[in-house]
Structures are given as structure tokens and as C-alpha cells.
């Protein structure tokens, strides 16, 4: 197997995530896209770890998963609160602050 392929896959996933953030309105979906980007990074880490023969990348992936979980906790809390206030989870509806 060629680690480069995985890196390319990771890049594709990262791009999908990025595009998702840009084009989706729903805060939850946007958030999921961010998670996708994080996981793309994870994939890259692991692939590179394989390539370089060090364990660091794999260990990092675990750290990232934990951090991502924390992010979920905080993120969902915020999104839910906003949803309760506005009855909408659309990012575009939250634009009182501008100019």
C-alpha cells in the first residue's frame, strides 16, 4: 500500500469538509463537516506515521479524537442554546451582528 494515496484521500476529505462548511446552512451539518476535516487530518497523520515509521502520528490521532469529542460537547451546547432561542439551527439566521 502506498501512504500517498491515503494522504490524497485525506486531502479530498478535507476539501469535502471545507466545501461543506461553506455551502451548508444547518449549524449541525456545518459542524459535522468540521469534524470531517478533523478526521481527514487524522487520516493524514496516521498515513504519515506509517510512511515515516514513527508512532507519533497514530498517537496524535487519539489526542485529536478526544479534542474533537470535547468540541462536540461545547459545540452542541451552543447550537442547542441558539436553536432554543431562535427556533432555527440555520447559521444564516444568526446575523444580527454585522457591518
Amino acid at each position, binding site marked *: 500500500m502506498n501512504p500517498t494515496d491515503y494522504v490524497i484521500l485525506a486531502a479530498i476529505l478535507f476539501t469535502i469538509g471545507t466545501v461543506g462548511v*461553506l455551502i451548508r446552512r444547518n449549524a449541525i451539518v456545518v459542524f459535522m463537516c468540521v469534524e470531517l476535516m478533523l478526521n481527514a487530518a487524522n487520516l493524514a497523520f496516521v498515513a504519515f506515521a506509517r510512511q515515516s515509521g514513527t508512532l507519533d502520528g497514530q498517537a496524535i490521532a487519539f489526542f485529536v479524537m478526544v479534542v474533537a469529542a470535547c468540541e462536540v460537547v461545547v459545540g452542541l451546547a451552543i447550537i442547542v442554546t441558539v436553536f432554543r432561542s431562535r427556533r432555527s439551527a440555520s*447559521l444564516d439566521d444568526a*446575523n444580527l*451582528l454585522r*457591518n
Partner: protein
Amino acid sequence: MTLATLLSAQVSPATGSFHYASLLVLLPLLGAAVLLLGGRRTNTWGHLLGVAAVLGSFVVAASLFFAMVSRPSESRSIVETLYSGISVGGFSIPIAFRIDPLTICFLLLITGVGSLIHIYSVGYMEHDPNRRRFFGYLNLFIAAMLVLVLADNYALLYVGWEGVGLASYLLIGFYQERPSAATAAKKAFIVNRVGDLGLFIAIMVMFVTFGTVSFDGVFAGVSHTSSTTLNAIGLLLLLGACGKSAQVPLQSWLLDAMEGPTPVSALIHAATMVTAGVYLVARSGAIFSAASIALTAVAIVGTVTLIFGAVIGSAMDDIKKALAGSTMSQIGYMILGVGLGTKGYALGISHLLSHGFFKAGLFLGAGAVMHAMSDRLDMRRFGGLRKFMPITSTTFLLAYLAIIGIPPFSGFFTKDPIIDAAYNSGGYGWIYGVVGQVTAGLTAFYMTRIVAMTFFGPKRWEEDAHPHEAPKSMTIPQIILAVGSVGLGGLLMVGNRLPHFLAPIVGEAEAPNYLSVNTFVTLGLVLIGAGYGWYVYARNEVPLLAPAGGPLTVAARKSLYGDALNEAVFMRPGQYLTRLLVFTDNRIVDGAVNGTAALVGGLSTRARKWQNGFARSYALSMLGGAVVIAAALILVRR
């Protein structure tokens, strides 16, 4: 031996009474200070102080004169250095007074005529609430004028030069509440400043050329200097002389200057200040003698002005303006005289001195007439005053005979030699002579016109006029001046006394020949002019309103369009330029500043739309930023 070498190395330091030379200036200066700063407290005795100050100066001047004549003629140049005025780098200007035969003539004229006019003014200004201020200004004038003639270098001369300009400004505008007086004062100062510019630049050229501006230093360098530079200096000095002496093309202010009180016209605008240009040229004789083009220019200016002034004088109905035209014309003679070079310097000065007396006499007479006629000036409303003002009319007539040059009165002895010298100057000199002679006739015409319209013929007075003879304080000075008008010319010129006296300073002039053909031609023209004047203005009735007259008369009444020219060439374009610049400054220079501010503000308002509140749009910007970063990184690596 050139004049320049003649002049050098003849200067002695002050000794004896010459130490008191600074008193000449200090006395009137102190008088002016007390009168102007003292306020109303000095109202009661202020005029007396003013008179005393000038009389004191006269006494000093007279004692200096006697001290001088007692010295041998080659050691009559005395310099008294008072203190260091400016000393920067290698350049220093000491405050130093120089007393030599040329200066002493002026000292006597200024303080002598000055004293008489001060005395005259005591009566003339008696009812003016601001008499004290008037005397303050007069004293200031005397001080400045004395600085002018006492200065030992051009810079200090310039101080006096502008100082008299200031005094003239203050005195012309003495009746400040009259807008015409204020305008005339301002005009006089500004036109004078244009002339001063010439003197100023001349001083700068002297500094650059000689490294000094002292008379001796400059004159010593003349022989080492190119004629181009000397001509440039000469022409610039001439510009200065034109401004101060109201010579064409800077003549326009003098007629308006008659807005001032009449004693001022007599002292400043006839006897002393306006002759400063003559002094300047004579004093700079060393330069002019080596600068042929400049010297020719001086003669031409004098010639043009002498006829120019006479033509104007012939057309004016205002007695003071008619006399002012005459002053221009007479100064033209003097300038012509000094424009003839070494032969003429002394002649110009001698005419200056005699003119100082008879013209002051004429003006004081005119003042007395005005005084009698409730301050009216229109000669068409005078007439027949001879009977009511015997003393004034007599002194006026004596001065009249002097100015038109009837022998043996002063003018004959001092004007004729100038015409004569012009004829003898070679080249195109005969043109000056012809113009001088014709103008002598014209002078006789306009002076006869003035005398006839004022003192002879029927009364043409307005109803409220009650003419009376002037008080003693006014008549006595007139009498003294009349005496001078009668005898001064002869005193100075018979035996070539004055030219001789001045020779160490301005070079030896030839003794004039009073029996030449030219003299008789001149006298003939004078008689024709006087006869024609008498015919028109005494034998015929003078209309109360001026007749239409031919084109020359109209032009002369408008002072030969001097003002119109100034207005068209300088004032109007100046006003447009000023308006244009005000607009430019507001809209373009400042507009650019405010415009930039507005532009940035507009940019800001527009850029704020970018901050649209949508998180996804912000994310897009971030992605854009990432692309920019990537691009920047990749571009550099290539």
C-alpha cells in the same frame, strides 16, 4: 582720477562736536516717542516739544556745519560709529553716522525747513484734536530722514529710507476717517515699497559683490568690478530713487499723497523726502560714474518725469495737486542733473536745496489759502485773494518767481545750470536740454495759472468763505522761506560755492555760464509761458466748472493715466490672482486633503458591506485568505 578713488581714504573719525551727531537723530526720536506714547497727558504742550526737538536738531546741525567749514576741505568726511548693529559670519553692519559736505547740506535743509514747517503747523493744526499725534509723526519723520542722510552704509540708509516711508504713510493718512486719505496712504507706502525693492536688491548685489555695504567699502570696490554689475546696481538704485522721488514709472502716489495735511505736503512731499532719490544717486556717484547705462537711464527718467509732471501740473484744478505735479517736474530736473554724472551731481543737489525753500514756501502759501478758504482746494473757487492775504500772496509770488527761474531768484541760478549742463553733456544730451527748456516754459505757464487763479481776478468763492490772513506762526515761516527763495540760489551758485563745497564727495562740477544762448532761450520760453498763462487765467474769465478740454488736457487731469495703467496691469490681475488662489486653496489644496479623507471614509463604508454577518461568508473569506497564503508561499518558492 576716478570718483571712487577720490572718495576713499579721506574719512576721519569723529572728534569734538561731531560726537554729538547722534543727537541729531535722538532729539526728534525722543520727541516722537514722548508724543506718541505719552497719550493725552501731553496734549497741551506736545506741539511745543515737537518744535523744540527739531529746533534742537537744527542747532546741532548748524554747529556741525560751522565745525566742518573750519576744517580743511579734504578732511571733511567724519564717521561716528555708534554700535555694532549686525554681525553674522563675515558680514557686519555697524550703526555708524557719516557727516560730510553732502550730508551737512541735507542736515541743514531738513532741520531748517523742518523747523519752519513745525512752527507753521502749530498754527495750522491748532484746531485739530490730534495735533499732538501730528507732531509726533513729524518728529518721527525728521528722525528717519536724518538717519537716511546720516547713514554710513546702504543698510542703515535703507532703514531711514523706509522710515521716511512710514512717516509719510502715517501723515498722508493722518485724517484716517477719510477713506480717500487711508487709501492714498496705503498706496504711497506700497508704491514706495516697489521702489524699495530696487534698493534692497541693490544692497544684496553689493553684499555679494563687495562683501560689505558700507559706502567706503562699496566705492573702494567699484574699480575692481565689471560694468555689468555696476549697471545692475545703478539701475536698481534708480528704481529705489524712482519710488521715493515719484519719478516715472512710480510717480502715481505723489498726487494722492496730497490727502495729507498741507505742512506734510510741504515738508515731506516737496522739500525733503521726495528728494531722497536725488540724494541716493548723488551719494552713489562713484557707482553711477562707472555705470554709463544706469547713468543714462537716470537722465532719461528725469527728463521724462520733468515734462510728465509739468503736463499734469498744468491741468489740475486742485491747488495742491497742481503743486504736486510741479514737484514731480522739479525733481525730474534734479534727477536729470544728477543723471549727467560728475558734472551734474552738485547741480542736482543745489537745485534740490533751492527747490526745498521755494516749493515749501508755495505749499505753505497754499496751506494758508486753504486755511482761509475753509479747507477748499479747487482753484476755480478762489480768485482775488491778493487783497485779503497780503503776506501770503507776497511770499507766494516770490516763490513763484523763484520756481519759474526769473533772475536773480533762486530757481534761475539752480535750474539753468542743469539745462546748460544737459546741452553740454554731448551725444543726445541736447534732447534733455530741449525738453528742459520747453518744460521751463510750461512751468511758467502752470505757475502763472496757479497764481492768477488764486490771487488775481474776480472772487469765485463759495458763499461761506471768509478769507483772512493767517496767524503769525504761519506767516513767519513763509516769510523766511520767501527770503530763501529769493537769495539761496545766488548764494549757492555765485562763485560756484556749493559745487566747490561738495566736490570732495561728488566730484568737481564745471562752473555754470549764466550768459549763454541757452539761458536766453530759456528765459524767452519762460516769458512766453507766463504770458500765455496770464492771458488765459487772468485776462479771461475762469469758468467755475472745468471745460471739457482736448485729449491732452483730459489725460493730464487723469495724471496721464498712471493710475489707470497700474490698475490694469497690477491691481486687477492681482485681484483675480488672489481670488483664484483663495479658490485653489480651499478647493484644490485643502480639497485634496479633505477629498482623501472622504475617499477613505467612502472606502470604509463600502468595505463594511463585506462584514455581512453570515458566518459562512466569513468562512469563505478565510478560505480566500488561505488561498492567498498558498499563492504567496508558492510564488516565492518559484
